[in-house]
């Protein structure tokens, strides 16, 4: 049960992963190429978002707000909660997940010989920032494309069985005109859904490098996973 349950929230916080991706069956090839083309012009990205967690174990959804920063090619920062309760920072080959209230920092080495959940997590992250259409198509496929309430909706399915064990489906909402990111929604194995809606989007504006620093308060508990430096 534990394994099944913990898969529910896999990929939580990484709902952007489909936003910058590409790939697809032939009927949707043109949309995908347009999306990748639009994403390729995106060197910096900053947004606020509202995340709603519809968990099957709870009678009411949990709502929180957060912010996200991205800087090509391999830096991003994700904060959830106000003040932030969880922070994920990627810089180069290192991903750091901070829990300020618990005074805990978990670090992952990207590109290392990770196995299990760590490997899946990193795979999803890399999928969010594709280098090419082939990379993205190796990770996802588009199962449906529709337009609803002014949003271009792409229904995605992870190709990796391991990834599907965490998240059977992913929905990405794009602006029909600019193909900019509007929302993501992860569907978990137990039916729980985590929806992030983005607002106040700023693109290619300067971002302080301080946001991507990996410094950790030495008094915090630090957990290294595998070959983390």
């Amino acid at each position: 049960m534990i394994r099944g349950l913990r898969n529910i929230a896999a990929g939580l916080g990484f709902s952007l992963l489909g936003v910058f991706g590409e790939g697809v069956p032939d009927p949707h090839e043109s949309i995908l190429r347009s999306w990748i083309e639009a994403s390729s012009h995106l060197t910096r990205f900053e947004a606020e978002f509202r995340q709603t967690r519809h968990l099957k174990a709870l009678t009411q959804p949990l709502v929180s707000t957060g912010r996200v920063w991205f800087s090509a090619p391999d830096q991003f920062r994700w904060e959830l909660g106000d003040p932030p309760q969880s922070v994920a920072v990627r810089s180069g080959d290192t991903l750091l997940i901070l829990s300020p209230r618990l005074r805990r920092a978990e670090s992952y080495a990207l590109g290392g010989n990770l196995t299990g959940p760590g490997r899946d997590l990193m795979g999803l992250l890399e999928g969010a920032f594709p280098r090419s259409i082939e990379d993205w198509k190796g990770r996802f496929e588009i199962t449906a494309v529709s337009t609803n309430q002014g949003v271009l909706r792409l229904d995605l399915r992870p190709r990796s069985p391991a990834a599907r064990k965490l998240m059977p489906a992913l929905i990405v909402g794009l602006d029909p005109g600019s193909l900019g990111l509007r929302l993501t929604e992860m569907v978990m194995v137990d039916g729980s859904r985590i929806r992030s809606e983005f607002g106040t989007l700023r693109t290619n504006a300067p971002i302080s490098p301080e946001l991507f620093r990996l410094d950790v308060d030495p008094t915090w508990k630090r957990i290294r996973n595998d070959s983390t430096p």
Partner: protein
Amino acid sequence: MPLGVLLVVWSLYRLRLDSDPLSLLPAGLPSVATLREHQALFPSARELLITVKAGTPEEASALAEGIAWDLGRRKDLVESTRWDTGFRESIADTVAWAWAQRAPMDLEVLEQRLEAGRIAQELAACRERLATTLDPAEIARLAYDPLGLLDVPGLSGMEAPGRAQADPFSSSDGTFRVVSVAPLNPSMPYREAAVWLGRIRGVVEEARQRIVGNPDGKTVRVAFTGYVAIMAETANGMERDLTSSVTLTLAVICLLFWVTHRSLKPLAWLVVSLLLTFLVTLALGSLVLGELNVISCGFASVMMGLVVDYALVGYQEMRACPGRSLGQIRTAVMPGILWSAATTAGTFLSLHFAGLPGLSELGTLTAMGLVVGAIVTLFWFLPRVAGRGPARVGEGEGLELGEAGVPGPFARWLAVAGTCVLMGFAVGVLALKGWPRIEGASDPLMPRNSASQEAMEELRSELGRTHKTSWLLVRGPDPESVHARFAEAVPGLEDARRTGAVVGFQLPSVIWPLPTHSRTNQATLGRLGGRADEFRSRLLEAGYGSNALHLADSILQRWHRWSGSGEGIPTWPEGVFGRWVAPMTSARDRDGSWIGRGLVETPSNREGFPSLSSGIQIAGWENLGPELLARVVGRVRVLTAAIAIALTLCLWLAFRRWTEVVLGLGALALSFGLLFTVMSLTGATWNLLNLVAIPLILGTSVDSTIHVQLALRRQGGDLRAVWRSTGVALLLCAGANIAGFGSLAWSSNAGLASLDLVCAGGVVCVLVVVLLLLPAWWLVLHRRPKGLSPSPGLQAEANDLTPNGSSGCTNDLTPNAMGQSPGPKPWTMKEDLSPDASEEPKDLSPGATPIPKGLSPASKPSHLYGVWAWWIALQVARRIGRRPLAGVTRLGMRLYMAVRPDRLDLVRENLRPVVGGEASRLRAIAKANGLGFAEKLVDLWRLEAGIRSRVRLAPEAGWHPFREAVASRKGVLLVTVHLGNWELGGPLLADLGVRPLVLSAAEPDSGLTTLRAAARAHHGVDTLVVGSDPFAFVEVIRRLQEGGVVALLLDRPVGSGVESRFFGRPFMASPAAAELARATGARIFPMVVIRDAEGPVARALPEVVYDRSNVADRELRRTFTTRLLATFEEVIREHPEQWFQFVPVWKSGPSGDGVSGP
């Protein structure tokens, strides 16, 4: 015969093959003992593992579940099946139980956290964390376990550090699944296991067809591994190996035989003999060893390759000497075959010291096979091929000595230059590429090209077990002590992990039962269980749905039940997981003690086990290599050194020349150098098993160097003749040996195959060096101005050792061989006195006597007659009583007579004129003579060891004149014959106040001469060692002229003696007594010491009165010698069983020069 057949059939019927790979390992090693213990205690070690690889996780899961379900219903085949741990289904059972095993303090913390006043705050914090955490696992846990009951302290330790994949039944992507199957009979023998496995395969295939439904099976792959599959595959593979290697060896042998002899019937008998040898050996192995290890079955082809040599030797002898009877042929070849069998068997028996039980059994079986093969050849094969087929003169025996086969200087030096080039090449290759590497892994003990092994490798890879896995066993009288030892092990394991010696480890500490904690915690758990309704309402208030309540409800219900019903807390978790985890992590020994099992992973590039605290046993197949290798290397070193020393000794005994000994050792050294070079070039390596090839090659190849050098001696360096006789024979024998070893190169056991490949390669290298290079070396070192001329004496000597034993047709066994002795020469002390004057049992040890060249082996000194053997005999005689010593000696004599029947034939021929020609009587007296000699030896050893036997004086008239003659000091010549205990006469004379001088020949070695002279001196007897020194005779005359007493023996024939008559036959007697009589006029007294029922008794025969004019010339002395001999005829006829003559005594056969018997 029928009884023997029945015995063989019965033994073969009860033959059982041990197919357990663990039986190959030395039981004395601690890690092996732990492995055995592990296998005996943990049933999972004997399970069958079925692996399923599918395109999707769903497909793999469905098929694995279906297979487990179908097999689980086959109660006639299977005890149980499992395709996952059952943890998901049993999570409430497991967590409820795990809390009960925690320290009471942990329960207090839990109870405080769930206090009524704090629970609302706890649930609020939980919701906030749920809304913001990025950890998927945490979301799942907080959503379905808001009370935090899954936070059992230490439970996260179930996943080992560094282990990403903790599910033992599934790969991380779920496309690979494992189904474990516990057989109904886990100890079934391998044939039954093969049948069982076949039935299991049938059930699995049906399940696959039903569930997957693709008959071509392209997307789904099912494989079988685990103990049962590996054992069945190994054992059945070995059975196939045995059949194919025996067939191949037989085919090669048949081919070689046919090419050489082109005769069908002997070939058929040869094949039957080899098969008979094989069956009898297998039956003997079954009787002696009980259960045979499968690897030891490799003996068959090795044995056949060696045993066929014996048959070839016998058959070749038969063809070379067509006129000789079966008995003569057998007598001729028997010593060689038996000695060869004994020495080679000894070499194979030395495998006992290699430290690997499988090889020990192989060595024992091969040794038994060699002995059986020798007997079958001599007593079954030879009688059946006797007289068959025409003899081919010219295959060795008809060689013309001195043919133009001696190579010129250019050819010799060319060969030597070739040697240098070869050595340079070997040195260069070894310098550049290095010596063949020694592999430390235990892989050679496992089968190769094995589907079950490949499946195991895939399983390890798919489950992320990229490191070496070892088991860690901890023992204790109760669960608490085992748990404490696990805790003690953790710091050491953590240290090892930090240093890289350990990659990860799993200890069952968190799921280990602690009954004392359970009893203490029962009340707390009961209180918490009783608050289930309260917790439910609190959770609903906090916004949790019914989904979130399920786990907590289940756990609280169990706690409540355990505390209220009186059934108590179970030892292990209830549910599926509990039933799986208990036998996986724990076992109970017969004495009731508890054993806990953990798992340690070590880096794949690191050998050996990490060192842990005492009391913790660790073992694993993958890490056994270094420990085993250290043991085997140590043993092989000692073994090789011992065999090298023994071989040097053998070479010395064979050659008696250091140059040839050095050449022999050099040839072996170069052969090994070549073997190493070939191995280095081909990338072959030494491993646990093929290291043993070193002593094995040494032991089986040394005779090649002996045969070639002796053939060179015999043929005077004529290479053509050497090749036609010894060379061809060696080639045939080596071919058979190579076939025997090489046929196992395709064995399914990697180690056995490598061992046999190295052995076969070694034999080839030895053959190349010995046949192509050694003769050139020999010729360079033995150059003579006009070339070498073959020596008849050397030829006779070498005939004994020639592998086919036929060249030259060993007619040295015939009495005519005496005629090959050198012609008459001027008389010297050595020739005339030494053999006769010797007091020792020269019959079996006439090494010091001047044996004419060309005498038969029976006429040569026994190799047993040397200083060390004699010294040991004296030591033994000094320490044990006469009766046990006599018993052992008689037994030894019986064996000797069985091994050397030619000696017994010779005794019969010597006794024929004495007792008549009745065959049965002759046989009986000859046997009694041999046993009597054993008694005589015992008396002699005891005498020389300082223990005097009482010798009675017979009441005869001769004593008085003897005393008178001694008192007159005019010199007394005591003459005697090899009758009874003549050596006891010397000390007897000393007792009578006489200090006699005994004339003795030099012994086979100077140490023995000194030893024996000292022993006589101890008893007041002087010794004069006579030889070629002419002044020795002067000393004897001086002694007699001074009134001394000199003793000598009369009845040993001397080639250059005077032809006298003895028992009516011509007899080449020593004229020494007559010459001394002529020179000194000493009085001559015949005397004998014989043994009757009461012990030794000395008899003084009537004085031989003479006038010096009667010995004035040679003819008179011949007559006088005949008269002297005649005085002993009557007493010898009275005691023929005590007339110890073990060399031919009659000039040209028992009937003399055509003179009829008396």
